[in-house]
């Protein structure tokens, strides 16, 4: 897997480009990022789009929701759940996808890559 080496905040798109309570995909260099917009709380989450179970770039196409107190996305292929906050897989806690901090400024989505990814 290639991950971009960026340590500054970069502008991705407008908040209005996202789909309410669903996922959208962004491309940063060669890395695919799934963006999830939870309308009720106004939050946007960013996870790596690559689903480690199906080995395909599909997480942005999953359904988002909650399990207990955690917001999650369900992989559209084999239905494992990943926490939006941390990227941790609910069914198999040894597995996690990368989670990225999101900053919403003036209606724009800004993403920070903290150093080099895996």
């Amino acid at each position: 897997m290639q991950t971009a080496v960026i340590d500054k905040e970069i502008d991705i798109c407008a908040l209005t480009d996202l789909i309410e309570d669903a996922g959208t995909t962004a491309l940063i260099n060669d890395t695919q990022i799934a963006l999830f917009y939870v309308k009720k709380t106004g939050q946007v989450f960013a996870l790596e789009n690559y689903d480690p179970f199906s080995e395909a770039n599909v997480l942005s196409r999953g359904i988002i929701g909650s399990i207990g107190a955690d917001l999650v996305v369900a992989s559209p292929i084999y239905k494992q759940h990943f926490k939006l906050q941390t990227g941790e897989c609910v069914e198999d806690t040894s597995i996690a996808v990368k989670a990225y901090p999101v900053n919403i400024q003036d209606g724009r989505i800004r993403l920070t890559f903290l150093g080099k990814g895996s």
Partner: protein
Amino acid sequence: MSKKKLVVIGNGMVGHKFMQAIVKDQARDEFEIIIFCEESRLAYDRVQLSAFFSGKTADDLSMVSAGFYEDNNITVHMADRASLIDREKQLVTSEKGVEIQYDKLVLATGSFPFVPPIPGHERDNCFVYRTIDDLNAIAEAGAKSKVGVVIGGGLLGLEAAKALKDMGLKTHVVEFAPRLMAVQIDDGAGAVLRKKIEQLGVSVHTQKNTQNILPGEQCVHRMNFADGTHIETDLILFSAGIRPRDDIARESGLEVGERGGIIINNHCQTSDDNIYAIGECALWEGKIYGLVAPGYQMAQVAADQLAGKQNSFTGADMSTKLKLMGVDVASIGDAHATTENAKVYSYVNGADEVYKKIVVSEDNKRLLGAVLIGDTADYGNLLQLKLNDMALPEYPDTLILPQRDGSGVTGLGVEALPDNAQICSCFDVSKGAICQAVSDGHTTMGAIKECTSATTGCGGCTALVGQVLNKELEKMGMEVNTDLCEHFAYTRQEMYHLVRVGNIKTFDALIEQHGKGYGCDICKPTAASIFASCWNDYILEKPLAGLQDTNDRFLANIQKNGTYSIVPRIAGGEITPDKLIALGEVGKKYNLYTKITGGQRVDLFGARQEQLPLIWKELIDAGFETGHAYGKSLRTVKSCVGSTWCRYGVADSVTTAINLENRYKGLRSPHKLKFAVSGCTRECAEAQSKDVGVIATENGWNLYLCGNGGMKPRHADLFATGLDDETLIKYIDRFLMFYVKTADRLQRTSTWMMNLDGGIDYLREVVIEDSLGLAETFEQEMLTVIDSYQCEWKTTVNDPAKAQTFNAFVNSDKGDSQIVFVPERDQVRPANKNELKATLGA
């Protein structure tokens, strides 16, 4: 050691049961087994014989699983009657001249229908009702007849009357006694039963003594009665009781009863220790048992005796519960209160035509018998009270009085029953067996049915099995949780109701009013499906888009590498050459892998998300519309080519298939729906494996419901026969809407129907007889769905903003570089792991 020879004469239900019992036993290896079977068919279900007239075939009725006798090394002499037993030489000789020496012999020769010696009984078009051959002859004659008479108003006679009615004949029942079912029920019950049966259009004539049968004037026969009256009829069925077939025993000198029947002891042995007799040919303590359950008991006893085990036949319970022509009838034990000093309690409800009677012991402590007509819900409880000799409540009449204050059924709780209490008598399932099934994880009625077969015979024990199930679940501390998910404490059916009644159109409103949390991948698509079934709005509209499973959100079927497959609608499987070419051109242009589906369509694989609107633009321009292969909705209506081309076809199956597909396309449902239409009974469209199957006959369409293929295939049930186009559509409308409204999430029609209390019969009541008074609502709601149909792809490609949401990335025009295809058999397929590595170099 050479094997002992075991010869069995007769392969009816009891004869077959005996074989099943013996092959299960270790002692089976001691025997070489030979069977003589007089009929040209192996054992079949005579109890369900009348189902032959509502569409069941001889194969459906067969009780012998394919290869059973071959696999168990049992020799069967088919269509060969054993005609002679030489007891001295221990030799059986057959009509065809086969001679077999035996060590042990079992007689399961059954009975024959008694035909009263009325002058004229041997005329043409006079039948008995016993074998499939009889039924074939009756069907043939029935097709040329207008009026039919059944002589004999007993259990079998009323079954036969139903068969005549099903064939469309004006039907009469002629009974010598003053009431119907004289053996099982009393006068009061007989009157209620008679009224109900007459309401069904069957004329009942009691106290009629037929003097002779002569040529008729309007019909084939004229039956003259002793009281001077007469009836004209084209066809006569004799159902005046049975007589044991004991001729072969009699001729070989075995002891037989004064009025027939081979005398047996408690071990089912005849007067010759080496010869056993079981079933309706056997006479035990002066009694012939004309029901199958006691015959089965005898079969088991004889098998155990041959295996050297302890087991005896000590009489059998003759209680019965059945639905006769749609009327519930049950009789338990001493129904006529012949026990000395017995007390009788009865309840008659003239308005609802319900009759209940119980017979109790002098001290009011024990139940001796009961009769129930019109409402047999109490049967299970009463039977258990009787069979287990349990103490009655202080006021026994509370057992049959209606519980209108909602306090529930009095009498005994199922907990009071011992583990060995027989709950299902058809399949001999004990309470213990059901409890075991529950603790093994079979926690729904459907699962219990499948695992134990309980309730799948006469269905008389359904309520009781349900009670045992619930009690067990309660004991295990398992609350039966039917909540959809953690966000909604409702079933899908309740959610549907909430949505419709509350006029709710968004998930936000639904979860705010009735749920908690943010929803999930279970409740969101369920809500989306319900919204679509109720309001049928465009599913990618803003508040709805996030609810859809990825397939519904991108209106295509996701594949393992994240690409999609596309299936345009090809209604009824009919397609023009031009459209085929268009499909080919699109496939070629976008380098799609193409495959023909089982539903007579073409599937185009390997489309990238961002290509979907482009591809669909071209398909729509070529005249295609979406095929909803991605949705829980109507998939296809498969058809054969029908009468237009086929030399066997009797109706135009293609036109009907296209009409049905266009009518129901886009209907969102709890699970996918598959239909098929066959143009004749050769059934090339395989309609009987579909949720809705339609088969053409010369009399109109036969409608089959609730079949499916897949992991657990199930044949559809014949639901209605001889329908015209209009009625066919009316029934399907009602059926589908009832299913859409009441099924659980991801519940196919088959499981849904199995879990309906009353199954297919109940479905018939709702759909055909409109017992819920909802038929018109169903039809109206279906019309709303049909009128608001839109091709979701057309709406999507016509809206640039919508089409844009298919772009792979929100901030780039690129595509997913990690989707890689490799060639295979002149097409593409997704790259496997190693191929991906080699290509991407990562």
